[in-house]
C-alpha cells in the first residue's frame, strides 16, 4: 500500500490539487487574483515535490511503471505547467472560469503522467484519451470567440479520429501477439505483414498527436484559434509527453521491428522538417508561425529518435527540456503583447524594441534558441539531436537536415528583423508585464542562456535515462 502512494506520487499530487481547486471553486471564497497566486504556489510545490521521495518500481502487474526516466520526464512536464501558469497570468486573471481551466489542464497532465508511466496498451490508450479530451476544452476557452470554438471542434474531431486509428492498431497488435504488456510484446513480436500493418496504424496515431507531416493539418488552425495558453500547452507539454512515450515505445516495444520503423522515421522527419519550414516561411500570425515552426522542431526530434540508441533518447529529452523554455518564452512574449494590444501579427511587431527592449530580447533569445544558434541552449539541443541521428544515418540525410537549419533561421530572423530593424510610425507602446509573467520570462531567458553551457544538465538526464 505504501508503495502505491510513493510510486504514483506525482499523479496523486495532481489529483489533490484538482480537488482543492474544485472545492474552492464551489465555495467561491476567493477572488481571481488570490486564486491564481494559490494555484501558482501549488504548482510550484508540485514541481519541487517531483524531485523528492522518488522510487522506481511497478504497480498492478506491470501496468503502471515508474523508472528514473519517467520521473525525470514528469518533472519536465511539471516545469512546463508551472511556467505556463506564470507566463499567462494576465489572461488567467481576467478569465471568469480560471479555476476550471486549471482543472482541465491538470487532468490532461495527469493523463500525460499515466501515459509516460504506462506499462501496457490498455493504460496507454486510457491515458492518451485523458491527455487529449481536456485539451480540446482548453482550446475552446476563449468562449466568446467563434474561431476558438471552431478550433476546439477541429481538435476533438481529429483526435477522436486518431484515437480510432490507434485503437485499431492496438487491436491488430493484440491479434498478432496475444498480449498487451509492453514487457512481453518485444519477445512475441516479429515483422510479419500483420504486425507491420498494426505498426502503421499505431504510428499514425502518434503522428497525429505530434503533428508530424502529413498528419499536421489540424495544427495551425487549432493553434491560431485557441487562447495562447492552450496553444503553448499543446505545443510544449502535450508534444513533450507524446514524444517521451513515443521514444520509449519505439526503443523498447518495437525494437524487433527496428528496420521497419527506422526508415519510416527518416521519411517522416524529412517531410516534417522540409514542409514545416516551407509553411512557416509565409505565416503572418505569430501563433500560426510558432505552430509551423514547432512542426519543424518535431522533425528535428525525429532525427534524434532515429538514432535508436541511448544517445538518441537522451538527446530527445534534453532537446524537449530546452524547447520547453524556448518555446514558452516565445509564447509568453506573444501573449503579453496580444493581451494588452490585441496584436498578433508579425507585422505589428515592427519597432517593438524601441518601447519594449525586455520583451524583444527575450523573444530574440527564444527564437535564436529555436533556430539553434549559440550560445543559446537550442544550439546544443539541435546539435546533439543531429549528432545522435548521424550515428546511423547517411551523409545525404544529415546534409539535408543541416541545410534546413538555414531555412528555419530565415523565418526566425523575420521576427527578429521586425522587432529590431524595421521602422514603424506607431510601434507597440510600452507593454506592462505582470510580475509572475516577468519572473517566468526571466527564468526562461536565463535557462536558454545557460543550460547548454552547463554540461551537468546533460549528465543528469543521462544518469536518469540509462
Amino acid at each position, binding site marked *: 500500500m505504501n508503495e502505491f502512494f510513493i510510486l504514483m506520487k506525482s499523479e496523486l499530487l495532481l489529483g489533490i490539487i484538482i480537488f482543492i481547486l474544485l472545492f474552492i471553486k464551489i465555495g467561491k471564497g476567493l477572488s481571481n487574483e488570490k486564486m491564481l497566486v494559490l494555484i501558482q504556489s501549488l504548482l510550484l510545490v508540485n514541481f519541487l515535490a517531483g524531485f523528492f521521495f522518488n522510487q522506481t518500481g511497478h504497480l498492478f502487474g506491470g501496468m503502471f511503471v515508474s523508472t528514473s526516466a519517467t520521473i525525470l520526464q514528469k518533472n519536465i512536464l511539471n516545469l512546463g505547467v508551472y511556467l505556463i501558469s506564470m507566463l499567462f497570468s494576465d489572461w488567467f486573471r481576467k478569465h471568469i472560469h480560471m479555476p476550471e481551466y486549471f482543472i482541465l489542464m491538470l487532468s490532461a497532465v495527469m493523463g500525460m503522467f499515466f501515459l509516460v508511466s504506462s506499462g501496457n496498451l490498455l493504460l496507454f490508450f486510457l491515458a492518451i484519451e485523458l491527455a487529449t479530451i481536456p485539451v480540446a476544452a482548453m482550446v475552446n476557452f476563449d468562449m466568446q470567440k467563434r474561431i476558438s470554438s471552431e478550433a476546439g471542434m477541429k481538435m476533438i474531431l481529429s483526435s477522436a479520429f486518431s484515437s480510432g486509428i490507434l485503437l485499431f492498431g492496438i487491436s491488430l497488435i493484440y491479434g498478432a501477439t496475444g498480449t498487451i504488456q509492453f514487457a512481453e510484446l518485444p519477445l512475441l513480436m516479429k515483422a510479419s505483414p500483420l504486425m507491420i500493418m498494426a505498426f502503421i496504424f499505431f504510428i499514425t496515431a502518434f503522428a497525429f498527436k505530434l503533428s508530424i507531416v502529413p498528419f499536421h493539418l489540424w495544427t495551425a488552425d487549432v493553434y491560431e484559434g485557441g487562447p495562447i495558453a492552450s496553444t503553448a500547452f499543446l505545443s510544449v507539454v502535450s508534444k513533450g509527453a507524446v514524444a517521451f512515450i513515443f521514444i520509449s515505445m519505439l526503443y523498447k516495444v518495437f525494437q524487433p521491428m527496428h528496420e521497419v520503423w527506422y526508415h519510416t522515421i527518416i521519411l517522416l522527419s524529412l517531410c516534417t522538417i522540409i514542409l514545416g519550414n516551407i509553411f512557416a516561411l509565409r505565416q503572418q500570425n505569430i501563433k500560426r508561425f510558432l505552430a509551423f515552426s514547432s512542426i519543424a522542431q518535431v522533425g528535428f526530434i525525429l532525427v534524434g529518435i532515429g538514432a535508436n540508441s541511448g544517445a538518441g533518447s537522451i538527446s530527445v529529452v534534453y532537446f524537449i527540456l530546452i524547447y520547453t523554455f524556448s518555446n514558452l518564452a516565445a509564447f509568453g512574449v506573444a501573449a503579453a503583447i496580444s493581451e494588452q494590444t490585441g496584436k498578433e501579427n508579425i507585422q505589428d511587431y515592427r519597432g517593438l524594441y524601441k518601447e519594449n527592449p525586455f520583451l524583444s530580447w527575450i523573444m530574440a533569445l527564444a527564437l535564436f534558441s529555436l533556430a539553434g544558434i549559440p550560445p543559446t541552449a537550442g544550439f546544443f539541443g539541435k546539435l546533439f539531436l543531429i549528432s545522435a541521428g548521424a550515428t546511423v544515418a547517411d551523409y545525404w540525410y544529415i546534409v539535408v537536415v543541416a541545410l534546413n537549419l538555414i531555412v528555419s533561421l530565415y523565418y526566425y530572423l523575420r521576427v527578429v*528583423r521586425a522587432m529590431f530593424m524595421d521602422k514603424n510610425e506607431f510601434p507597440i507602446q510600452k507593454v506592462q508585464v505582470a510580475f509572475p509573467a516577468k519572473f517566468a520570462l526571466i527564468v526562461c531567458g536565463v535557462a536558454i542562456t545557460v543550460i547548454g553551457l552547463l554540461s551537468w544538465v546533460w549528465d543528469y538526464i543521462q544518469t536518469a535515462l540509462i
Partner: protein
Amino acid sequence: MNLSLLILLPAITAIILLLLPKPSQVRIVSLISAVLQLGLAFFLFFSFTRLRAAGDNAKMLFEQNYAWFPSWHINFHTGVDGISVAMILLTSFVVVAGMLVSWNITKMTKEFYFLLVLLSLGAYGFFISLDLFILFFFLEIAVIPKYLLIGVWGSGRKEYAANKLALMLMGGSALVLVGILGLYFATDARSFDIMELATLSITPALQKVIFPLLFIGFGVFAGLFPFHTWVPDGHASAPTAGSMFLAGISMKLGGYGCLRVATFLLPEGAREYANIIIVLSAIAVLYGAFATMMQKDLKYINAYSSVSHCGFVLLGIGMLTKTAIAGAVMQMVSHGVMTALFFAVIGMIYERTHTRQVDEMGGLLKVTPFITTVFFIVGFCSLGLPGLSGFVAEMTVFVGSWEHTDTFHRVATIAAVMSIVVTAVYILRAIGKTVLGPLKVGFSNLTDAKWNEKAAAILLVAAILAIGLAPFWLNNLVAPAAEVIMQKIAPVAAAVK
C-alpha cells in the same frame, strides 16, 4: 599563460556592459577591456616566443584540456601555435581600433558595444580552440552580432545585406557541421579533438567526401568564389566598426578554419582538391580586382578588394607548400589590419562628407591632412608597396607558389600576380579622385581626425609598418606552425609524386 583569459575577459566585459546605465561608461569600459585584451595578446606573443626560443617544440603551447560533455567526447581543449598567436594579435588590434572609431555611435550605444564584445569573444575562442565542437560553437556565436550590427546600425540596403550574410554564413556553418560530424564518426576513437584526429588515420575515400564539406563551409566565411557574394553587401552596409570586424576578423575565421581543420586534418582530401581551390581562388583574386574597378562607392571598393585579397589566402593554402601556407597566414594578418584601417578611414571620411561616392569628393588633402595621409598609407599597403604589410604577405604567397614548377601552378600564380596591376589602378584612382585635385564645394570647413580616430589609425598603421618593415618576427612566428601542417601533408605529397 592561461588562454581562458582571452575568453573570460570579453565575457565578463559583456556582462558588465549590460549593467551599465550610461553610454559614456559603456564606451570607457569597452575600451579598457579592449586595451586589456591587446595587452593579453602581447603577453601571449612574448611568452610564446620566449618558450619557443627556449626550445619548447611542442606543437601547441599553453594547452588546457577540460572535459565538457564526456559522453560526446567533447573537451574544452585550448592551445595555440604560431598561427593562432598571429591571429589573436590581429584580433586584439582590430578590436581596440573598432572600439575607438565607434566612439560617436549614439543609437543604442550599449547594445552596439555589447555585440562588438560578443563578436570578439567568438573570434578569440575560435582561434584558441583545439576541439572541433568548441571551434564550431565559437564560429557560430558571431552570427547574431553580425546580423544585428548590420541590420540595426547599418546603412543602405541593410536588412537585405544582414539577411544575406546571416543565411549564407549559416549555410557555411551547416556544411562545417556535417564535416565535423563526418570527422567525429570517421574513426573509432570518436573524437572532436583536433590534435588527436591529426594522429589518427582517416581513409582517403572518406577524406575526399569530408574535405569539400569543410573547405566550402569555411570557404563561405573566407569569401571563397563563388560563395563570396555576401562579402560586398555585408561589408558595404555594415557600420564602420562592423565592417572592420567583419573583414578584419570574421573572414579570417574562414581562412583559419580552411587551414587548421580542412587542410591539416584531411591532407589527402586537400591534395585531391588543391587544383580546384587554386582555380577558384585565382578567379576570386582576378574577379575581385576587376569588380573593384567598376565600383564608385568607397565601401564597395574595399569590400570587393577584400574578395580579391582574401583570394590570396585560399590560393596560398591551395598551393600546399610551407612558404605559401605561411604566406597565406601572413596575408590574413596583413589584410585584417589593412582592411580594418581602410574601413576606419572610409568611416571617418563618410562621417564628415556624408557621402561615400568617389565622384562627389575631391581635394580632401587640403582640409583633413591626417585622415588623407592614413588613406594614402592604407591604399599603398593594399596595392602592395614594399615596406608595408601587403607586399610582404603577397610576396610570400607568390614565392611559395613559385616552388611548384609545373605549368598549371605557374599560370595560376601569374594570373594572381597580374591582379596587383589592377589593384594599383583602382586604388590610385580612388585616392586620386577623393583626396587630390580641387576641393569640392561645401567641404571647406571639414575637421580633421579627433583623438579617438587618430589613436585607432595610429595603432593600425603601426601594425602595418611593423609587418612591412620587419616581417621576420611574423614569419618566425608562423613558419614553424606552417611546417607542422606541411609535415602532415608532405608524406602524402611524396606518395603522389
